[in-house]
């Protein structure tokens, strides 16, 4: 049987706590560490192991079993120094995949230079997403998949309602590809209450029609996507 992946989450503030709980929900083994007795007690009912320890004490981290983990998430919210020190200790313990929750852009830079595999700065990422959702409400989701290419979930522009993918000429006009179409289909349950169910056409063909309220999942480079976004609100 495949061995479950083991994670250590060091620092159980709001972010770390939720990361630990979500990892357990995904069936991962989680070691949760914090220097606060109360929060460790609270999380112990959810995670595989929970213990009180000082993340800046190398011996304590080793004894806690951090070196047996595949990945370590450092989410220490007190100060940058503690977070960096904990990261270096974890690195010395031989952990290759180290994720650091950043407290600032400087923290991100330092952590990256010192060898963090991934740096997350949730406040900044959330702020960007929030602004996107306010400025362009018809762009539902945007994921950068490479330096030049993005995956975008976009409301079908009015211009192409009722047209097939072929007739919409979306590939020629905008240089993007529709890789899925998401739609809400009306249903009625046994009690007579109406509801909607989501249907996804994962491999839309050239003769599939695009309708009002459809959500298009498209892939393309920045420029053509910006052109498409321009017509979404028309």
């Amino acid at each position: 049987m495949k061995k479950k992946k083991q994670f250590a989450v060091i620092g159980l503030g709001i972010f770390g706590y939720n990361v630990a709980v979500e990892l357990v929900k995904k069936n991962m083994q989680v070691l949760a560490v914090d220097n606060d007795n109360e929060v460790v007690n609270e999380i112990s009912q959810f995670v595989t192991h929970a213990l009180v320890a000082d993340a800046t004490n190398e011996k304590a981290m080793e004894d806690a079993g951090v070196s047996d983990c595949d990945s370590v998430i450092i989410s220490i919210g007190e100060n940058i120094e503690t977070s960096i020190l904990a990261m270096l200790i974890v690195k010395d313990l031989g952990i290759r995949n180290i994720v650091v929750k950043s407290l600032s852009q400087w923290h991100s830079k330092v952590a990256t230079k010192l060898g963090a595999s991934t740096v997350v700065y949730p406040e900044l990422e959330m702020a960007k997403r929030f602004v996107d959702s306010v400025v362009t409400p018809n762009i539902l989701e945007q994921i950068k998949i490479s330096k030049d290419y993005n995956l975008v979930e976009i409301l079908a522009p009015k211009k192409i309602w009722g047209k097939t993918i072929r007739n919409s000429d979306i590939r020629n006009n905008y240089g993007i590809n529709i890789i899925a179409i998401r739609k809400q289909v009306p249903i009625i349950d046994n009690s007579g209450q109406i509801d909607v169910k989501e249907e996804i056409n994962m491999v839309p063909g050239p003769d599939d029609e695009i309708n009002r309220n459809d959500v298009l999942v498209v892939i393309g480079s920045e420029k053509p996507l910006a052109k498409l976004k321009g017509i979404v609100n028309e």
Partner: protein
Amino acid sequence: MNNDFNIKSAVVDEKEHIELGKFYFLNNKYDEAIYEFKKVLEINSRNAEAYYNIGLIKEASNLVEEAKEMYLKALHIDPNYKIVRDKFNKLVGIEI
């Protein structure tokens, strides 16, 4: 078109407007469905189901803010309306 007109003029009570609205909704005629649910509210402004139904159409049309407003109105009338509570929580981002 004439048939539509005849049906509409024959419908007088709250329940009939609800049923007709559902019929339109299930046939993807969202504007007509909303018209019927609004008629319900003209007859009875405390019909939580009509607010829910309008909210659902708004949500299906990706008009999230308007959907939330309608769900809130339904919940204000009937705080125990479970499906509305679930949908509202989901839109606001509260995990149940």
